[in-house]
């Protein structure tokens, strides 16, 4: 490929750039269009989440977890509250568990919609992006009826929820799911099986399974590489063991296993699975139950530490919480999945072209709020 080697040029992508998904800076060494090295520079969105946590009480941390991954706020607070609940040995009522799963899965769909849309946008397809945002809006509408907020919900509390489901939520959720499922085929026809999209993503940015594991890549990115690993199945938390769903893994239908197209495909399939889960949860949802029942008066976990991980839309979201028995956490560390996904970017995009780097970056589905925290 490189018979003639020209002068290398350093290109600064970002911090202000249309496809950096936030404020990210990539120092890219290029030889013509070919990229030879990428150094991500992060921290532009650093808001001292971990330092904050040491100065506020346990329940005050929840809004901050929302703000870390603002695309999937429900999933983020979900992980945090079940970690605290495990420390304090709280068992929440059935109804709360079901509502949490419904919210988390709806938010997963919303998050995947955004990821897929922006991935398409990075490759130049504008219309699918807006279609996906349209459907994401319906989910946000549902959340709005539940807790009044559209982006940062502060909905899941330790031991319970902030509000019970409003009247008519179940019907509205069913209606959304019925409308949404056929839309997935529309996205596929418009983007996923488009010849140009396939050309741009198949065989591009291949992430082999062993590299992915070594880099700690998780979630849809890992599954795109063909590893059947999903915490909801392999290490069930909450009530995920009660639902039937599949774990889609990349099969290399268009190119080789672990390419950008596979990561895209896995996310599409996961939305279908999430729809399945939500349907089951809505069906089994107990109609009775006080959602505030198990909320403790004082949140003071006993001395000790816990590492609890859950499956957020981006992968393994882990909380390492150290408690010294006081009302404020001694140490909260968030292991964010986008952080690890970001670190593999250099490895898999060397030797590709400048345009591919942005396609790969889009396919990894990063959220800067979560990387920088």
């Amino acid at each position, binding site marked *: 490929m490189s018979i003639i080697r020209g002068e290398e040029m350093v290109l600064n992508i970002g911090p202000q750039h249309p*496809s950096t998904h936030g404020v990210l800076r990539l120092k890219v060494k290029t030889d013509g*269009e070919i990229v030879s090295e990428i150094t991500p520079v992060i921290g532009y969105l650093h808001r001292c989440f971990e330092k904050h946590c040491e100065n506020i009480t346990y329940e005050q941390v929840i809004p901050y977890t929302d703000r870390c991954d603002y695309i999937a706020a429900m999933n983020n607070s979900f992980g945090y509250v079940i970690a605290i609940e495990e420390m304090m040995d709280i068992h929440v009522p059935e109804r709360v568990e079901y509502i949490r799963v419904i919210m988390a899965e709806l938010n997963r769909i919303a998050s995947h919609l955004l990821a897929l849309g922006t991935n398409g946008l990075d490759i130049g*397809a*504008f219309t699918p992006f807006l279609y996906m945002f349209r459907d994401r809006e319906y989910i946000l509408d549902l959340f709005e009826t539940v807790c009044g907020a559209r982006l940062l919900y502060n909905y899941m509390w330790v031991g319970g929820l902030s509000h019970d489901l409003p009247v008519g939520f179940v019907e509205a959720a069913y209606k959304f799911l019925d409308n949404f499922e056929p839309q997935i085929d529309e996205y596929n026809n418009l983007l996923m099986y488009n010849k140009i*999209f396939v050309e*741009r993503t198949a065989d591009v940015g291949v992430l082999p399974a062993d590299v992915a594991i070594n880099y700690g890549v998780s979630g849809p990115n890992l599954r795109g590489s063909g590893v059947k690993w999903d915490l909801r199945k392999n290490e069930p938390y909450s009530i995920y063991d009660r639902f039937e769903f599949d774990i889609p893994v990349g099969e290399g239908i268009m190119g080789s296993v672990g390419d950008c197209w596979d990561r895209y495909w896995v996310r599409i399939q996961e939305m279908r699975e999430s729809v399945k889960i939500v349907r089951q949860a809505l069906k089994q949802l107990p109609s009775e139950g006080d959602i505030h029942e198990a909320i403790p008066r004082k949140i003071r976990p006993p001395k000790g530490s816990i590492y609890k991980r859950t499956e957020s839309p981006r992968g393994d979201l882990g909380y390492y919480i150290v408690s010294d028995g006081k009302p404020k956490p001694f140490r909260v560390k968030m292991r964010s999945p986008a952080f690890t996904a970001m670190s593999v970017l250099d490895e898999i995009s060397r030797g590709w072209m400048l*345009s591919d780097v942005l396609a790969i970056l889009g396919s990894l589905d990063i959220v800067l709020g979560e990387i920088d925290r």
Partner: protein
Amino acid sequence: MNGLFESGFMLIVGLTIAGLVIFGLMAAIAIIAVYIERKVSAFMQDRIGPMGQGAGLHAGKWGLLQTVADSLKLLLKEDIIPKAADRKLFILAPYIIFIAAFIAIAALPFNQVLIAVNLNIGVFYILAVSSLGIIGLILAGWASDNKWSLYGGMRSAAQIISYEIPAALSIVSVIMLTGTLSMQGIIQSQAGTILGFIPNWTIFNNPFSFIAFFVFFIAGVAETNRTPFDIPEAESELVAGFHTEYSGMRWAFFFLSEYANMFVVCGVTVTAFLGGWLSPISGVMDSPTWGLFWFMSKIGVLIFIMMWFRWTFPRLRVDQLMNVSWKYLLPIALFNIFGVGLWILLVG
């Protein structure tokens, strides 16, 4: 040149008026096309696009005045020239691009009589001057002293040069059929019908010219830097490509030229393949006024297809873009020339 004007003064006045007319036409085309593009994209994306809001003249009914307001805003914007830029070339570049688009319009036949200059070598002239725009793109990319612009300039130059070849070769097959380079001549030779009802347009003339139409149109889309071939200004990669550093009126010139180029490419396609101002039903509604109508509506359809492309397709990568040109379009175009030659020899 041919002594039409007696005095120099008259010549200058005449040229100025002709120039102003074409300029007005270009501006009108751009404003209308931008409005249509916004509405088309909006409808394709399940939106409503620009709309007038409430009482008063916000953007007119259905947002009709939106682009007018935008162009006024662009006129009033501060003119920024980066300090590190090569000032002279930075200023010159948009004019070169604009002039290339401008002088190409002069040879487009709008109907039987409405043509600024009916050149003997009309098609060839348009192909030649459209290559002038590349210089402007390279200069804009170079003079900005910006890496994104440089990438954009280099990409667009490589792209346009590559796609000019299949485009020119497709036109050659048309010229072989019509036997003239004059725009009006090409249209006139398409008059009449085949089998009594199909209009005798180049596209329907034989299977090879049918393929040539698609080759030329795809190459034309690529030459106007539109999606899926918009890599020179690929927003998600190169910010805005060669015009990253341009703002205000200078940027508006790029914009104007882009839409004028679309118009020219579609105009040439219509002239060469779709019978120009000829009526689709031979002998019906073929007065000059109808001619103008047919010409413009054919162009409108093609421009709509270009917009449709833009709001549907993702973008190609730069090497794939070159592959399309050199590995597919060019061999097909060469084969077409051969095929048309055989057709003329055996059938016509």
